[in-house]
């Protein structure tokens, strides 16, 4: 039972409550840095680190933080983690950091992170909170990666920098430009909607069949 | 500048439908023989329905008062025939709904004469008595709206009427009732106009006639005695020239402010038929029990201009005109632009019904509706300068409340937009739908 619960918290973030595809949160980094798969992963990892770290802290100290200043405290905690992530990336992978540019500090303003603190971490015990954060962050990472891959494959004919289609491929430049970000995410959401619609239809058909059978 | 506009005798926008009047324009008015069944709905006018004062089985004379006005905005009702009241009950009306009506069975042996001695000496009446007489006589606007005439004639204190404008435009295609009245009864028209002008204290009478009726203009001009304050103003042929406010714009160059009435620009507008009816009542003692109806359209075997007793079922009228041609599909009460289609041939002719038009499959073949491409033709057509395209889109999306901001209630449903629409969108219907919804939802607050 207990195990299931953890499991559940983790899974829901990846699929059922996917922060990007379902809740439509954290769009700024989502679109800005996904012009290549590598950038997407770097951003995803940074977000993962910040989200899990701050969820852990917030959940641990949730009884000590007064209600009125909780948002300020959350922000301070998040900003600290972001700064840490920023400097770490800068030191370890300067090339990637240069690509991501100002968007690493902007993780602070990602509603996903603050939202999880408020909605989950500040109300639930540490273990659950961390599981939830990991699930959400993984879902976010997954979304970033899928968007980044699509954009890189079409926009550069490559994935993780490796050319896929040979030299003569005509890249779809728009994909790595801003409009491509909007359009790709729009189309992906479309597919998501379509999938959910089909699923609902399927479930309804099943239900109707059962009713008919009875 | 103002003088120039005066010369133009026009209003802005509007449309130019083919007028189709040649079918009946030269046919003299005929009288329909009396039939058997008559149904007189109590609410033939805008406003409160009349109150029946007869009961089933009672014998009534032609011209006898059978219902009293139910309030101020209400008129009297007179029996169109001599006969027996069969029932006071619910009958289907033009709008498809059932409403209280007096059903009368005509006496086949009666002479159906009206007592001419009932004429009233209008000059001896005070203004109040005059207005009450018009109300009892059951006279309403005969152009189609059926607005009680006496209400229009009651001018509040402080407002002065300087011009009596008589509407002889008859801009609706097919219809020729006013045309024929002007040609055949110019004396009655001028007599009636004089009565109303004197009672209102107006300075002059202006008769506005579209230029496609030169014979009518000619005849009326010939009947005007020198020195009479009457003039005939020929108007450009354009729909809806006969709409009250459009005509005022054309004739006087004045725009009646939205929400206000012609009297606010010192004008009183009456239809030719209304004026003739007033003359008939005061000079010949005949209340409003019959009217001239144009029966025309491609589905009618013998088109005609007819005097029809009110309450006559459409069926009898059509039968008199040789019945319906095969393939007849739609029957419209009134003109083709603003008239109402009827659902059943048993619907009676009412006071406001100026025409019975029958259309065949050819005219009514289902028109494919295309999406609105915002071409703007409706805006160019709307004489009220509304944005019909947007109103229709809002109505389709059921965003009725938003339509207020686009002045949906200023729409007079003249049909210009729908006429002009290349996508065949039923714009007027959509606007009426919204008005209907808005009006109904307003009630709980009031």
């Amino acid at each position, binding site marked *: 039972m207990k195990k299931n619960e953890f499991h559940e918290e983790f899974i829901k973030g990846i699929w059922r409550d996917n922060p990007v595809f379902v809740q439509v*949160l954290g769009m700024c980094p989502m679109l800005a840095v996904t012009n290549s798969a590598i950038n997407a992963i770097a951003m995803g990892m940074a977000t993962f680190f910040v989200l899990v770290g701050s969820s852990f802290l917030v959940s641990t100290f949730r009884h000590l933080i007064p209600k009125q200043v909780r948002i300020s405290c959350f922000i301070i905690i998040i900003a600290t983690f972001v700064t840490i992530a920023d400097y770490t990336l800068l030191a370890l992978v300067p090339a990637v950091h240069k690509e991501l540019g100002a968007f690493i500090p902007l993780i602070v303003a990602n509603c996903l992170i603050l*939202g999880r603190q*408020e*909605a989950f971490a500040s109300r639930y015990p540490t273990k659950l909170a961390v599981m939830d954060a990991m699930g959400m962050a993984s879902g976010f990472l997954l979304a970033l990666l899928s968007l980044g891959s699509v954009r890189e494959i079409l926009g550069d004919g490559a994935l993780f920098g490796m050319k896929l289609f040979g030299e003569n491929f005509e890249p779809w430049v728009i994909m790595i430009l801003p409009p491509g970000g909007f359009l790709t995410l729009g189309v992906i959401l479309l597919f998501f909607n379509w999938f959910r619609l089909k699923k609902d239809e399927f479930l309804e058909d099943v239900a109707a*069949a059962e009713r008919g059978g009875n | 500048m103002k003088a120039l506009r005066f010369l133009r005798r026009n209003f802005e926008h509007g449309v130019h439908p083919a007028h189709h009047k040649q079918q009946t324009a030269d046919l003299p008015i005929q009288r329909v023989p009396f039939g058997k069944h008559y149904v007189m709905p109590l609410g033939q006018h805008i406003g409160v329905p009349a109150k029946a004062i007869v009961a089933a089985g009672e014998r009534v004379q032609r011209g006898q008062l059978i219902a009293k006005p139910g309030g101020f905005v209400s008129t009297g009702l007179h029996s169109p025939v001599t006969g027996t009241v069969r029932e006071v009950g*619910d009958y289907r009306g033009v709008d498809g709904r059932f409403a209280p009506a007096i059903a009368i069975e005509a006496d086949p042996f009666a002479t159906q004469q009206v007592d001419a001695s009932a004429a009233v000496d209008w000059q001896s009446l005070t203004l109040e008595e005059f207005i009450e007489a018009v109300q009892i006589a059951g006279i309403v606007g005969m152009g189609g709206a059926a607005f009680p005439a006496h209400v229009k004639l009651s001018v509040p204190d402080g407002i002065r009427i300087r011009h009596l404008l008589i509407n002889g435009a008859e801009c609706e295609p097919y219809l020729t009732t006013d045309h024929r009245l002007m040609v055949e009864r110019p004396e009655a028209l001028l007599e009636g106009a004089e009565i109303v002008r004197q009672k209102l204290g107006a300075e002059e009478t202006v008769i506005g006639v579209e230029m496609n009726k030169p014979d009518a203009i000619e005849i009326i001009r010939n009947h005007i005695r020198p020195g009479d304050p009457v003039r005939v103003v020929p108007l450009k042929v354009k729909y809806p020239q006969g709409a009250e406010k459009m005509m005022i714009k054309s004739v006087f160059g004045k725009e009646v402010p939205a929400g206000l009435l012609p009297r606010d620009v010192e004008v009183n507008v009456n239809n030719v038929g209304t004026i003739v009816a007033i003359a008939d009542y005061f000079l010949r003692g005949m209340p409003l029990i019959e009217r001239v109806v144009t029966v025309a359209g491609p589905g009618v075997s013998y088109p005609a201009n007819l005097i029809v007793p009110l309450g006559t079922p459409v069926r009898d009228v059509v039968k008199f005109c040789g019945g319906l041609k095969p393939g007849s599909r739609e029957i419209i009460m009134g003109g083709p632009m603003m008239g*109402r289609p009827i*659902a059943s041939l048993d619907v009676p002719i009412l006071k406001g019904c100026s025409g019975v038009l029958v259309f065949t499959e050819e005219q009514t073949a289902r028109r494919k509706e295309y999406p609105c491409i915002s071409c703007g033709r409706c805006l160019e057509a709307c004489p009220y300068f509304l944005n019909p395209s947007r109103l229709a889109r809002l109505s389709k999306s059921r965003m009725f409340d938003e339509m207020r901001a686009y002045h949906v209630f200023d729409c007079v449903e003249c049909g210009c937009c729908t006429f002009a629409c290349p996508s065949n969108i039923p714009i007027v219907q959509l606007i*009426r739908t919204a008005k209907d919804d808005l009006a109904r939802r307003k009630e709980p607050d009031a």
Partner: protein
Amino acid sequence: MNSLLVAPAIMVGIGLFFGAILAIAQRFLKVDEDPRIEATNNLLPGTNCGACGQPGCLPFAEKLVAGEVDPGQCTVSTDEAIEQIAEYLEVDAGRAEKLVARLRCNGGHLQAHQIAEYQGFEGCRAADIVSGGGKGCAWGCLGLADCEAACTFDAIHMNANGLPQVDTEKCRACPDCVAACPRDLFELVPLNQKLYVQCNIPLAGEAATRLCKVACDACGKCVADAAPGLITMQGNLPVINYASGGEARPEATFRCATRSIVWLEREQFQEQESRKAGTA
């Protein structure tokens, strides 16, 4: 410069400075408002993300308290938090009985005939203004689905007979369909009131049945068969008065020749619904 000291010093300084300013500001600039707004706001995530369409959590809370929005519109909150808000705000609004929309007409295509063909915009109200849309009965359901379009909960679907089928599970008894119907056929009725009159024709006898096979002809048998006082005839239609004390029982419907008074188990047009399910 000793950065090891500078950083904490600045942080503490900023923290103290703004903490103090805000604390003072809160004291002196406080504006009185509905305490429920504050409380609701505290239950919200406070992310001010704007995903709900409101400009922030506080405005959302204000709208919540004003009853203009649903707690569920906050996409960031957890389900529990939403429930909590709903509980907090609805303490006094506990509605015991579930109401559903019922249609006062049973005259679909099969029972009530058209006297003329309607052509134009597919909508009840639009059709109604064109001489009543050609339906013989001037009071009955036009079957052009204005209610289906108006229903925000997807609870109304037109059935094969051209009548709106209300899904009692989904129906939230909002008055949308009541307002949408140009013939005022919908009413909100408790789900457990099973005796129901399905006709709106104020005519009696043959005049009514000529228009519709299932019209109430005002014969009065149901009045006689029901508990005394439960049903009365008003304007040629039976009116059921539950407050009269008489028990509503199916017997009242047994002698109705036109089936215009019925005993509802759950859905209103059961036979069509089961047929549809069977074929699906």
